[in-house]
């Protein structure tokens, strides 16, 4: 068993693992869809086994505290990265202003096979947001206002955006460039109860001139087309703030031959019911990320570096960079030169 472990701890195997990992890294550049995860997982597994065997069998490693911490740290990173890939969760979601996060709205989901799926317990309410733009429509700081449950039945206001995610139960919500306006509509059918909801328009200002969407009322087969004519004060050559409160919008409704322009609060009669344009609203697109190993990965990585530093300190603390031997030789050379000058 030990002989087999020693073979597994071979430094040649380490080098082979490193070369394979470098090849795997090269193949993974840009996350191509047609490259299997095994180009990385294979070499990492090999290196993890090699590391484990080296830690257990090599006195050069397990009798030196610094090297031991360094190698355990590297092994921990391999293991944690693997756990992370098995339990991660990634998705995107659009949340309407003044609406609660709805887990059924998430899109583009990808997750590890052991992800436990507790996203449905996440609760927050999206409020308004602002985005600063500089001349040339260069995006600046995003401030998204949200309310998060404080655990005692109350709501805590928070401002998130850019590099400050909203973190709830380990799920991290990042604002994205994908955000825009929405029309809050109420549909009052001829029979039945009225329903109110928001119709999201395409991302703004990316699709400035395409603020259109369509909707088919429940029980109807006729699709209604909507166009939001916006006045946001957008000036591409000056600083500008994207803010729903500084924006006015007329909702243009197209229903077959019928074309109606509605101001907020106005309604129009359509086939099967009445449609009321309640108000201009907005939506924010979030990227959702979950990885329970993040903090542990950070700790393992820092321990790894600490182990390396400790090892170097032990190795070099008695060896000055200005080696005495060299300095002595320089002094000798100088003496000889001085003698030569005097002569």
């Amino acid at each position, binding site marked *: 068993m030990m002989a087999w472990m020693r073979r597994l701890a071979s*430094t040649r195997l*380490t*080098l082979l693992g*490193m*070369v394979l*990992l*470098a090849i795997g*890294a*090269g193949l*993974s*550049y*840009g*996350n191509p869809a047609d490259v299997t995860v095994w180009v990385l997982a294979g070499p990492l597994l090999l290196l993890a086994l090699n590391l484990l065997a080296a830690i257990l069998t090599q006195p050069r490693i397990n009798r030196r505290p610094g090297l031991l911490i360094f190698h355990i740290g590297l092994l921990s990173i391999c293991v944690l990265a693997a756990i992370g890939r098995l339990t991660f969760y990634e998705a995107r979601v659009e949340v309407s202003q003044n609406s609660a996060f709805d887990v059924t709205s998430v899109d583009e989901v990808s997750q590890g096979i052991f992800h436990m799926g507790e996203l449905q317990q996440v609760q927050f309410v999206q409020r308004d947001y602002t985005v600063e733009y*500089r001349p*040339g429509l*260069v*995006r*600046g*700081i*995003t401030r998204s206002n949200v309310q998060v449950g404080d655990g005692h039945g109350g709501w805590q206001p928070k401002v998130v*955006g*850019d*590099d*400050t*995610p909203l973190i709830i139960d380990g799920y*991290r919500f*990042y604002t994205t460039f994908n955000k825009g306006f929405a029309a809050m509509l109420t549909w009052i059918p001829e029979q039945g109860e009225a329903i109110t909801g928001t119709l999201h328009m395409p991302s703004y200002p990316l699709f400035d001139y395409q603020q259109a969407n369509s909707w088919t009322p429940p029980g109807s087969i006729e699709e209604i087309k909507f166009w939001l004519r916006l006045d946001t004060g957008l000036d591409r050559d000056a600083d500008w703030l994207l803010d729903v409160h500084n924006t006015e919008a007329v909702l243009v409704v197209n229903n077959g031959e019928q074309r109606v322009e509605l101001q907020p609060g106005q309604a129009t009669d359509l086939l099967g019911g009445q449609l009321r344009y309640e108000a201009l609203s907005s939506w924010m697109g979030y*990227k959702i*990320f979950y990885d329970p190993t*993040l903090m542990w*990965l*950070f700790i393992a*990585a*820092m321990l*790894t*570096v600490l182990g*390396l*530093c400790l090892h*170097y300190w032990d190795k*070099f603390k008695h060896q000055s*960079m*200005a*080696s005495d*031997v*060299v*300095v002595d*030789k*320089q002094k000798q*050379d*100088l003496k000889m*030169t*001085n003698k*030569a*000058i005097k002569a």
Partner: protein
Amino acid sequence: MTGAATELPWMWVGLFAYGVATLLAFRNVWQAGGDNAVVLLAGRQGERTILLAIVTGVLLLAWALAVRWDRLGHGPFINLFELLMSQLFSLGLIYSIVYWRVPNLRASAVVVLPLIWILGSWILFLEPADSQFPPTYHNNWLWAHVGFGKVFLSFSLVAAGLAGVILLRAIPRLGRSFAQMSDEALDQLAWRFMMLALVFDSLMLIAGAVWAQDAWGRYWSWDALETSAFMTWLAIGAGIHVRLSYNIPIRIGALVIIAVFFLAFTTYFGAPFYSEAAHKGVV
């Protein structure tokens, strides 16, 4: 906040000072290789002049960076012009400290300064275009990431300089000028700097991963810089592993160090040629 690139004259004078230091380093080596017996004393004087020229260049480049920073309202983190300018400053600064504190490696100036001057020549052909600061750059981890990266590249540069000296000794005239240190001592010093480079490379990757997690919602994404930086880290690790585990010839070790430095160099300055944005989500 923007306007004419008033930092340019300061940068040019700073580069001129680096140029003077480079020429003096060449002169020192050439003279030391001759038959004149007083060259060692002259060499000492020459070293002080080289250090003075590098420090002058560093101060002028620092002022140029400050002027640009004040003009644009943000640090030199965005376009290639800014990256080169800040690297010219940081490489010069760290090398001047090492040059001052570790006299044994002063011979490496003849390799290090021309390498710095590759960046110096390059920046002269670049437009000093103004840049916009992305919102995800308002993050303290960016500072840590960039700072560790600069120390890493500087230590790699010093190691490459020493490795270059080992290889240059093969030329008879130059061999005499580098005679103060044995190959073994140079080799040991070069690998010690590579080991320090590995520490700072690791710290750079950790700080970068934390920043990327905050900024773009993922700590690793195999973009151009991340892929290249990871390969560099692996190369340094493999190089040190080979050096410690096998008795490789000193000149082969020197070639390994130079290859690793080349990889690190292309990570910093090659990525713009094969990737639209250095990091995903940078814009």
